[in-house]
């Protein structure tokens, strides 16, 4: 295939992915909007007003970047894991496997679909947050770099989950038992500096701490961890995971007999 044909194939996958999550918007776009609005009302307004400042900002402002990041993580992961597993389950993945597309294009297409949903939900949550507080971007480059890299990383994570999943239970286990606890303990609602030294040290092994804090730095200009190190860590994990997923697809793990 020529580079133009590869481009057409890539755009085809992305178009299909975007069309899919837009078609089922009550399952994909609406729930995070409602959930995050509840977080803003309950944690931000009702409880937050009693908590006072955190990191030099009122509590609502402090948690908004973390909640946006949580939406990006959950939705980029959720999009790829459900879409890719769905194509496996319905065998429609065979449409792609019989075509001349390379595994790289398939991977890039699904990841781009995951990033699109992650970013779109992130934008919706950001827009909703403006009804509750003011936000000003301190560092635009860091903000967007973190959002995109995190969405890519978790799209890749969703892909790994979908590749190894054999039944629908398998795609629910990781988000429920791994992703959600790591996100809630990833400094979304609190500064890890508030934790006792031991638990602060433990938190530093949670990759989501770096993403949430790097994003909070981009928006508010404060972070519990070094932002340069955070960006480097996210980029490194992304590259490693990308190479791993490509290797899995090239070998046909979970998709070819």
């Amino acid at each position, binding site marked *: 295939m020529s580079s133009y044909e590869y481009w057409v194939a890539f755009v085809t996958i992305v178009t299909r992915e975007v069309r899919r999550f837009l078609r089922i918007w009550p399952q994909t776009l609406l729930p995070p909007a409602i959930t995050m609005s509840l977080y803003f009302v309950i944690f931000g307004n009702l409880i937050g007003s009693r908590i006072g400042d955190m990191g030099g900002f009122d509590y609502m402002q402090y948690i908004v970047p973390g909640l946006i990041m949580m939406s990006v993580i959950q939705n980029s992961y959720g999009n790829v894991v459900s879409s890719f597993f769905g194509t496996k389950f319905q065998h*429609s993945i065979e449409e792609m496997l019989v075509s001349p597309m390379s595994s790289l294009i398939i991977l890039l297409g699904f990841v781009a679909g995951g990033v699109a949903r992650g970013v779109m939900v992130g934008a919706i949550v950001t827009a909703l947050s403006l009804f509750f507080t003011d936000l000003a971007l301190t560092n635009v480059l860091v903000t967007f770099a973190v959002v995109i890299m995190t969405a890519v990383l978790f799209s890749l994570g969703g892909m790994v989950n979908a590749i190894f999943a054999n039944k629908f239970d398998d795609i629910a286990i990781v988000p429920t038992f791994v992703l959600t606890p790591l996100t809630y303990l990833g400094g979304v609602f609190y500064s890890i500096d508030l934790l006792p030294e031991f638990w602060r040290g433990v938190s530093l092994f949670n990759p989501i701490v770096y993403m949430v804090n790097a994003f909070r730095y981009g928006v508010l200009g404060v972070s519990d961890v070094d932002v340069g190190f955070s960006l480097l860590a996210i980029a490194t994990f992304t590259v490693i995971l990308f190479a791993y997923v490509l290797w899995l697809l090239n070998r046909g793990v979970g998709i070819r007999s």
Partner: protein
Amino acid sequence: MTEHNAAPMALSIRDLRKTYGGGTEALKGISLDVRQGEFFALLGPNGAGKSTTIGIVSSLVNKSDGQVSVFGHDLERERGLAKKHIGIVPQEFNFNQFEKVFDILVTQAGFYGIPAPRARERAEHYLRKLGLWEKRDSPSRMLSGGMKRRLMIARALVHEPQLLILDEPTAGVDIELRRSMWDFLIELNGQGKTIILTTHYLEEAESLCKRIAIIDHGRIVENTDMKSLLEKLHVETFILDLARPVTKAPAVEGFSVVQRDETTLEVEVPKSEALNDVFSQLTEQGYEVLSMRNKANRLEELFMRLVDRNLPEEASA
């Protein structure tokens, strides 16, 4: 010499082997050549290795060893070029149940690098050709079984491949639809497309295909043109319906006759003997034959003999 002998090779398989994870040896080194323009049948009982062979050619199954090339392009080294030439119609429905019929075709064309405007034109052409244009905006799950089969054929053709492989395309479809699909396949073959068909309907293979390979237990047990294959059938069995009931089978010299019921006889006729002899002897003995038919499709009879011959000891015991 057939008219296709000078044509280039559409599909060439050499010593193809496949052993699945559990140790099942599905293919034990098959070799097969299909020339451009041929209408080729791949037959075999369930579990013989047909779907594994097609799975490897269509890149859905990883081979264990051997080579596959499509129009001279090695499926491993020139995967993209080889795959562009192949259109696959699988046995099971494998499209997204929630996508619209039209979108399924346009998306499939996109996977082959065909830009959207051209993909839409082709989707319309093939949906009209296969009588699905009125259903273009329906989600595929709303189609009937026959429509879904036609959708899979339209999808396999949307990138205009030169080699079309159909895995049991008429399984479970009614006679009328089967006949119309046959006509469409004949038309495609007439336009120069090479067609490989697996089927359980041996009548289908005999009617459509000029060449045939029979695969059993992962090996090719026969690979020849249909005419030569049918010539190998030394004995045909005919069923005779008699005008009046009989109490026992009449003796007909040189033929084996079995009574099936009081008005039906089964007669085995060797190729070397004339069927007239049977009727002469029966007439002399006062039997009146009302009608006659083949016990089984000729190819079916031969198929059973070939496959029976190849049965493992424990299965034939």
